[in-house]
């Protein structure tokens, strides 16, 4: 009787340990799974945040560049007696099809080789026929541009400048930076209205 009881008791304990192990393993696997999911998501979100911040700066640069062009055109007109800087500025953007369709982009990389005065007003603008080309990135200098040498690689960003002529004395500038990440395409747009106030 005593032997039988002991045998029964031992069996009971053996079964209990198995369930205990199963529970432990499942809790362990669940937490590993949760960790993996959260880590993957966290790293993806970190990358997205990084790309978003860079895109923000690139879009900001687009607005500021056009703004600086406006200032240069208006403050240093070709003919000081009959200043037509504002009209020239608008015409310059319209000539590159910034006001229609797919927008335009500018290439400021050769700015330093353009003869003075006011090289910024001679920045080459090109229409984005179907889509704007991607900006190149140079790893060693942290430089973004379109023609910055052979060491540069595709940054994955493209910047589109759009112009809306609101009136005789007002234009609205849109600067959109788009990038592809994972399975989606993201974009960041800033806009500002420029007036002929100078």
């Amino acid at each position: 009787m005593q032997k039988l009881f002991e045998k029964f008791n031992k069996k009971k304990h053996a079964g209990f340990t198995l369930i205990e192990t199963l529970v432990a393993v499942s809790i362990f696997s669940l937490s590993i799974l949760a960790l993996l999911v959260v880590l993957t998501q966290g790293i993806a979100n970190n990358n997205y945040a990084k790309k978003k911040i860079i895109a923000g700066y690139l879009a900001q640069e687009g607005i500021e560049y056009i703004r600086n062009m406006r200032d240069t055109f208006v403050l240093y007109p070709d003919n000081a007696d009959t200043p037509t800087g504002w009209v020239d500025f608008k015409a310059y953007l319209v000539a590159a099809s910034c006001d229609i369709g797919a927008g335009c982009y500018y290439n400021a990389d050769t700015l330093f080789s353009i003869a003075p005065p006011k090289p910024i007003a001679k920045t080459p603008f090109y229409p984005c026929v179907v889509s704007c080309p991607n900006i190149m990135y140079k790893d060693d200098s942290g430089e973004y541009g379109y023609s910055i040498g052979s060491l540069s690689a595709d940054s994955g960003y493209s910047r589109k400048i759009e112009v809306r002529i609101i009136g005789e004395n007002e234009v609205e500038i849109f600067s959109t930076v788009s990038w592809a990440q994972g399975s989606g395409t993201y974009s960041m747009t800033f806009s500002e209205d420029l007036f002929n106030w100078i």
Partner: protein
Amino acid sequence: MRIKKVIKKEKGFVILFAITISSILLAIAIGVSNIALKEMKFGTLARNTNDAFFAADTGVECALFSDKPPTSVFVLAGGTDIQCLGNTITMSGSFPSWSFIISGLGSEGQSCAIVSVVKTTGLTSTSTTVTSKGYNTGDTYCNSRGGERTEREIETNY
């Protein structure tokens, strides 16, 4: 009886071990997601900052354009309407201080700015202060739509 004692002694060790390890791993996961959340907030803030700043800047530009001679409205017995964003905006106030609201700014028309213009007449010249408060989000009266919003203020003196 002795077997029973041994088993009793080790009972619950595996589950304790598993929970301890899981807790450590979960703490790491929470740490990582916390960093990710902060980064996302930072990225969004960077966008809101620019939206608010460009709204404020548009407000200043609009005021400066409306103050351009010879058709400045910011004069004694000047008009109450200004032309900005392709619309007629009615100002409140009269000489020497005015204020107006421009809305529908930003990429999605969600930003706005509250602009005030103050003229100070001196003995020989008149000085002007344009203060523009830009918000990344706001309705037609530039009131908050709820939630957090970012303000950027530009002051111009001339």
